[in-house]
């Protein structure tokens, strides 16, 4: 048997694809490193030539230096604290707006998306107009419109009319009625925490029970009920056990203002870091001749202040408050006390992010619902389910698989877009980093810090959404 004899020689090494692959990668690496070195070298030279406060070298020591500027929102920040802490406050502010924004945008997007597939022509078209307008205009323009055009055009504090019992909308922010835990309500935190644990446990047990019985449904309702029960019990326990600290004392200054506090060291004066201020305690102020001159409630930091009193107060009495109190904003001259306040910057940024991202989410939801086969609707109708039940039990669970991946990128976009805060002066992490950079000249470090933070956010969001996606994904054999 003759076989054609192939010349059994290996190709020369420079024609071997494996060698070529390695050579190419080495070449690529060399070029990249050369460019990188060129850029880095230029940067170091220029930094050394310039006389920035950061001192040319890429040092991180500025993070522990005194900041010297205040931050108007978020956790309390005093100018004598460090740049590092200022940045942390900025990160918290970003998270504040991003977390609330993601929740509200999801709700808005879901509603608008469902409206987009509604049989009701009018609702459908209304949702379409919303989606098209807000998707096709830049977020920055929308943000400036809300901030300069809408919120700044609200009435000033002196002229603001109340929105019923809800609060006030002014050009300096929103002042809303809010529920606060009082001095005697501090224990409620533990009951809330306990309620969450019990609620989750009950929901899990209920779901297992339903699964065993082969009944469709989720344990969410049972969980919520258990949570509510624990919280209500906690409220009554806290209510019956409520008493003021034995060493309660007060400081009264200038006849109209002061602080109510627990006098831990018994010296009768309020020491900022030693004594504990008593929040939301009802107080009555008496004048020199024993008549009542004012009554009200201490603030969240135990302080109180009244204006236009008929006479100077000389004495104060307090009563034990309920664990929770409804605090309404009250006009005091050029400001409000009580309730919670939302700054115009936060409100504008939140509004812009929610309305803009909601429009994108609506389209994603619509696409997801449309991706569910029409037969699924018809089959579910044939089983006698109404539209709501069809949507909830048949269509949305299947649509979620299509919705989750693009939804993730919308959440990430919202987080990244929150950096537009700089356009309205909301102190988010990017805005704070610019202030730090302007003061220290640590340009490169500032950018690196911001990029690393955003990349971390992206990574965490992706990991969470991938986990959730796996949960709702189609289970195949």
């Amino acid at each position, binding site marked *: 048997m003759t076989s054609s004899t192939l010349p059994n020689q290996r190709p020369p090494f420079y024609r071997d694809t494996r060698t070529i692959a390695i050579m190419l990668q080495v070449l690529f690496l060399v070029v990249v490193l050369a460019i990188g070195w060129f850029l880095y070298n230029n940067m170091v030279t220029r930094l050394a030539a310039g006389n920035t406060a950061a001192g040319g070298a890429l040092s991180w020591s500025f993070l522990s230096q005194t900041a010297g500027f205040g931050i108007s929102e978020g956790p309390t920040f005093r100018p004598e604290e460090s740049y590092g802490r200022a940045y942390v406050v900025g990160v918290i502010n970003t998270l504040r707006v991003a977390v609330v924004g993601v929740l509200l945008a999801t709700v808005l997007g879901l509603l608008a998306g469902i409206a987009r597939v509604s049989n*009701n022509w009018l609702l459908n078209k209304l949702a379409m107009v919303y989606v098209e307008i807000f998707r096709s*205009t*830049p977020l920055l323009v929308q943000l*400036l419109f809300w901030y300069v055009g809408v919120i700044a055009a609200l009435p000033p504090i002196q002229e603001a009319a109340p929105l019923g019992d809800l609060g006030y909308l002014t050009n300096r922010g929103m002042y809303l009625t809010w529920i606060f835990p009082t001095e005697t309500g501090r224990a409620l935190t533990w009951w809330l925490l306990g309620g969450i644990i019990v609620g989750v446990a009950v929901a899990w047990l209920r779901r297992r029970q339903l699964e065993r019985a082969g009944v469709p449904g989720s344990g969410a309702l049972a969980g919520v009920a258990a949570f509510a029960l624990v919280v209500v019990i906690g409220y009554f326990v806290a209510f019956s056990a409520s008493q003021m600290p034995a060493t309660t004392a007060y400081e009264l200054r200038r006849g109209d203002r002061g602080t109510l506090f627990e006098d831990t060291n018994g010296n009768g004066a309020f020491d900022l870091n030693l004594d504990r201020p008593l929040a939301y305690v009802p107080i009555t102020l008496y004048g020199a001749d024993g008549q009542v001159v004012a009554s009200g409630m201490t603030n969240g930091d135990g302080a109180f202040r009244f204006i236009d009193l008929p006479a100077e107060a000389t004495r104060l009495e307090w009563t034990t408050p309920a664990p929770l109190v409804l605090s309404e904003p009250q006009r005091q001259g050029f400001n409000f006390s009580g309730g919670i306040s939302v700054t115009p910057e936060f409100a504008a940024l939140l509004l812009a992010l929610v309305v803009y991202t909601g429009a994108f989410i609506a389209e994603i939801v619509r696409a997801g619902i449309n991706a569910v086969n029409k037969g699924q609707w018809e089959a579910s109708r044939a089983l006698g389910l109404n539209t709501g039940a069809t949507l909830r039990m048949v269509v949305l669970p299947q649509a979620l698989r299509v919705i989750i991946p693009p939804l993730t990128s919308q959440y990430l976009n919202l987080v990244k877009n929150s950096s*537009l805060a700089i356009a309205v002066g909301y102190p988010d992490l990017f805005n704070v980093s610019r202030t730090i950079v302007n003061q220290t000249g640590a340009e490169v470090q500032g950018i690196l810090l911001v990029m690393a933070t*955003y990349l971390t956010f992206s990574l965490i969001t992706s990991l969470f959404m991938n986990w959730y996606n796996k949960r709702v994904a189609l289970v195949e054999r």
Partner: protein
Amino acid sequence: MATDIRSTSWVNTNHPAPAQKPPASEVGVVGWLRTNLFSGIGNSLLTIATLIVLYFIVANLGRWLVNAYWEPIWVNRKLFAVGQYPLEQLWQPALVLLMVSLLFGLSTGRWGNIMRNLGVGLGALLLALALIPIGLQAQMVMAASLGLLLAGYLSGARVAISSRWLAVAWVLSLPATFVILLGGINLPRLGVTSNFAPLVQSNLWGGLMLTMLLALVGIAVSFPIGVLLALGRRSNLPVVKVFCVGYIELIRGVPLITLLFMGMTMLPLFLPGNWGNPSQLVRAMTAITLFSAAYLAENVRGGLQAIPKGQYEAADALGLSGFDKLRFIILPQALTKVIPAIVGQFIGLFKDTSLASLVGLLELVAVGKAVIQQPAWLGVTGGVAKEVYVFVAFVFFIFSFGMSFASRKLESKLGFGKR
């Protein structure tokens, strides 16, 4: 007696009864209302609730629109269009518009498809601007552009223009635009300086012109980079792959605004000291291009992934080299598939260029901010911010919505997303 089945006596010989009209409740206006608005109690309630909401929106919006003060926009229409570009040299932007209209017309005739949809949109816009009395010269330019667009369309449809030459013309139109707007070439570091008109430095460029320029440069220059990155991401060479994945994910993970600030402050740091500092426009364009490239790479990757493996294998079987395989088999198919995605990205980039206003470029939004601050409108109650931002949003809307509409038309024509 058995019936003779051949007899036809059982056949009704009367004429069939004339078809009755469907009941009035099923057709016409009433029928439409019943199916679409009042098909049930729930649906009717929903309709009424929507109507109430709609009434409040329309009533308030209408009242505002009637009372709004549009004077600042009309007075500053030149500023919104081209920024602080010198008045006596406006023929230069006009020339660019004429050039682009001609190219658009030729491409519309030659390629059809999405170009046709976009061309119709551009024509409608030019017609509207030619009819609104924005100024005689400007109107004449718009009319001439419209004429060139039509002429280009007719000749493009009749004469077989080489597709390649048209593409080359488009590529060359970008540097040509810069030269025309600048009024010459000004590269003192290379010792090249020659001009046909007084040089107009890029810090005077602004308005819609600058917005367009930023977006177009962003998408055009990032195109080759994006394609290379996409190919690199699908490469078998681990070093190349890691680098491309790293770049794409890094850029996509951070907001554009950080890149813009980085371009503004750090780009000069990366260049040798004797190169001087690039202009603000170049810095912003670099940042936008680097940003856009990462997103483009992901879009192109989608196209590459949609190509069946058989295409690669067939190309290999034909003995094509790696480069020829990409050039003749893979990229033409992949890039055609991602045209709608790239149009979508362009729309996004067009909106994102508004961020350039935060780093000191006088594009559309920055012009709007400047107009609001003009002392002439200080006396207007409530300020003119609403009017100006609504107008700016409207301009963005026309272009973004127009482009996405054209793209959607194309998608439905190609049958994308149809089941």
